[in-house]
C-alpha cells in the first residue's frame, strides 16, 4: 500500500497532489500494491470524489477544523492511519505544508524518512531516492533498507498524469478533534501585498540574483532595464537582503512570470526560482558559472562576470535606443 497525503488550499487540490498521484501510481503498479489517498477536509469540501478516480482507496477524514492544513492535526490523524494500514511508503509534498508535517510524523511513527526527493524507486530492499544537495550542484543517491518509510517529494518534478477513470472506494475515518488540546492553531491565510507593481504583467523583465554584490550595483542594472523598457525583478536572495521589495521576487515563494523576455543577471537558478520563470518566451542568462542550473532552461547565455558584461551591455542598449 502506498499513501499519498493530499494537499489542498483555498478549496482547490494543489498541483503537488496530482504529481504525487502520478508517481505513486507508477510505484504501486511496479510493486503491485494499492494506491491510497488520505484526505482531510472540512464539512463543505468533497475532494474524495475527485481522488477516488485516481486512487484504489481514499481514506476520508471530514471535520469542521480540517479545511486548513494544520500539521498538528494532520500528524495526529495520519499517524493513526499509518499504524493501522502500515503503508510501504507514505508520500508527502516537500512544500510548506509537508515540511511542517513529515519529519515529526516520522519521529512519532519511528519510520525512516528521506526528504525533497527528485526521484523515488521501490526495490526489494526498500526505497532508493535521489536528492539534490548544495542547491542542485551535486546529486545524492540514498537508500533506506526498511519495509516502511516516508518520503517528501519536490514539487514540479513529477508530471501529473492523465485523469484516471477508477472508481476507488472511499472509507470514512472521520474523527473529531478536541480543539482545546491543540498547541498550534491556524488563524488565517494572508496574501502579501503587490503594491503598485505587478511584475506578472511585464513583457520584458531584467532580473538580478546573488551575483550582484552590493546594493549600489543595482542602479546600473536598473538603468539598463529602463533603457530597454523592461521591469526590474529579482531572486529571493535580493529580497532577503532587503535590497528590493518582495513584490519584485520571482519564484515559487514569489511571483510566477510569463514575459516575452527574461534577462537573468547573476542568477544561478535554484529550482524555486526556475519554477517562477521557466515559461518565459526568451530567457537569457548572464552568469560566470558554466554549470549554473539556469543554463538548462535559458535559450541564450553569456558566460562571464556580470560586472564585465553589464556596463558594456548598458552602453550598447542606450546607444541603440538613441
Amino acid at each position, binding site marked *: 500500500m502506498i499513501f499519498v497525503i493530499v494537499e489542498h488550499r483555498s478549496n482547490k487540490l494543489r498541483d503537488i497532489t496530482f504529481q504525487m498521484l502520478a508517481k505513486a501510481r507508477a510505484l504501486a503498479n511496479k510493486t503491485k500494491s494499492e494506491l491510497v489517498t488520505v484526505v482531510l477536509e472540512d464539512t463543505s469540501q468533497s475532494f474524495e470524489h475527485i481522488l477516488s478516480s485516481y486512487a484504489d482507496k481514499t481514506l476520508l477524514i471530514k471535520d469542521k477544523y480540517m479545511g486548513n492544513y494544520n*500539521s498538528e492535526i494532520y500528524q495526529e490523524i495520519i499517524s493513526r492511519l499509518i499504524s493501522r494500514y502500515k503503508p510501504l511508503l507514505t508520500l508527502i509534498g516537500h*512544500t510548506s*505544508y509537508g*515540511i*511542517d508535517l*513529515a*519529519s*515529526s510524523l*516520522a*519521529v*512519532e511513527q519511528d519510520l*525512516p*524518512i*528521506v*526528504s525533497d526527493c527528485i526521484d523515488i524507486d521501490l526495490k526489494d530492499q526498500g526505497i532508493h531516492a535521489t*536528492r539534490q*544537495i*548544495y*542547491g*542542485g*550542484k*551535486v*546529486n*545524492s*543517491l*540514498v*537508500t533506506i*533498507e*526498511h519495509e516502511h518509510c516516508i518520503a517528501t517529494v519536490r514539487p514540479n518534478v513529477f508530471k501529473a498524469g492523465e485523469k484516471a477513470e477508477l472508481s476507488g472506494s472511499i472509507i470514512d475515518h472521520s474523527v473529531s478533534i478536541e480543539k482545546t488540546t491543540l*498547541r*498550534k*492553531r*491556524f*488563524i488565517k*491565510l*494572508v*496574501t502579501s501585498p503587490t503594491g503598485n507593481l505587478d511584475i506578472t504583467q511585464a513583457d*520584458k523583465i531584467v532580473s538580478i540574483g*546573488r551575483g550582484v554584490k552590493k546594493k549600489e550595483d543595482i542602479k546600473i542594472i536598473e538603468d539598463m532595464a529602463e533603457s*530597454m523598457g523592461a521591469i526590474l525583478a529579482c531572486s*529571493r*536572495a535580493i*529580497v532577503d537582503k532587503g535590497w528590493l521589495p518582495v513584490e519584485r521576487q520571482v519564484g*515559487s*515563494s514569489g511571483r510566477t512570470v510569463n514575459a516575452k*523576455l527574461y534577462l537573468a543577471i547573476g542568477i544561478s537558478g535554484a529550482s524555486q526560482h526556475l519554477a517562477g520563470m521557466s515559461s518565459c518566451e*526568451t530567457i537569457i542568462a548572464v552568469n560566470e*558559472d558554466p*554549470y549554473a542550473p539556469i*543554463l*538548462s532552461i535559458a*535559450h*541564450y*547565455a*553569456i558566460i562571464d562576470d556580470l560586472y564585465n*558584461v553589464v556596463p558594456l*551591455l548598458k552602453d*550598447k*542598449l542606450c546607444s*541603440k535606443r538613441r
Partner: protein
Amino acid sequence: MNVIVCVKLVLISTESLKLTEAGNIVEKGMSYDINEWDGYALEEAILIKEKYGGSVTAITIGPERSDKMLRGCLAKGADKAIRFWEPFIAGADSKILARTLCEIIRKMKYDLIMFGTQASDDGRAQLGPMVAQMLGIPHATMITRLELINDIAKARRELEDGIEEIVEVALPAAFAVQTGINRTRYAPLKGIMQAMKQTIPILSLSDIETCECSSLQGIPHVKLEKLYIPETDRNAHILEGTVAESTDKLVAVLTDKGLL
C-alpha cells in the same frame, strides 16, 4: 525568554563543486560559514532576547572548525555556545542529529528553540520538527515573522505563490525560520573582543548518553550510496567571444526578436 538556537557550519559553494575519485566533495580551498538560514535564526533569537530579556544559547554539532562560527554567534549577542562532536556523526542521518540535539537541550531551560528551515548543503529541512517531536513540544517551520504574546507565539509561515498563513503556537516551542525574516547584524568590535575570551564547552557522547540514546551510534536508517555531479542538460546557446563580442551578439539576438 530563554532561547536556544541550533546552528551549523556549511561549505560555501558559490561555484560548481567537484568530487574526489572516491566520490566525496572536494573541500580543499573552499570556505565555510554559518548556514544562511541559521544566521537568520540566530538574529531572531537575539532580537527576542533584546525585546523580552533572557538568554541565547547557540548549539552546534560539528568538528573543531565550527568554533569560529560559534565565536561569531557570541560576538553578535549569544550568551553561551556549546559544541558537540563525535567522529561517527559525520555520516549520521537527521534522526541521529536530532536525537543528539534533543539530549543536549533536554537538560536546559528554554522557552523557544530556533532553527533554520533548512541547510544550504543537505537541504533536508528536517531537524526542527524532529527535535520538537522528540522533546514533546509543538513546532512551526518556514517562519517569516514571529511575535510573542505571553506564552503564545504568533507566527507567519511562508506558503507558496506569495501566500502566508498565520498560526499561533503555545510555548515552549520550536521554530524554523526562513531567510529574510530579519536583517542580520554585523558583530560589533566589542562583542568580537568579548567572544575571544569565552570558553566553548565541547560535549561528546559521554556527556549526553542516556538510556534513550544508546542507539545513537547505530547504523543510520538513511544510507548515502553515492554522490554525483548531475549532467547539466545545458540547452542555452552560448554567446561566445570577448565581452565586446558576446554583448554585440546579445544585442543582435534582442534586435532579431524585436525585443528592443
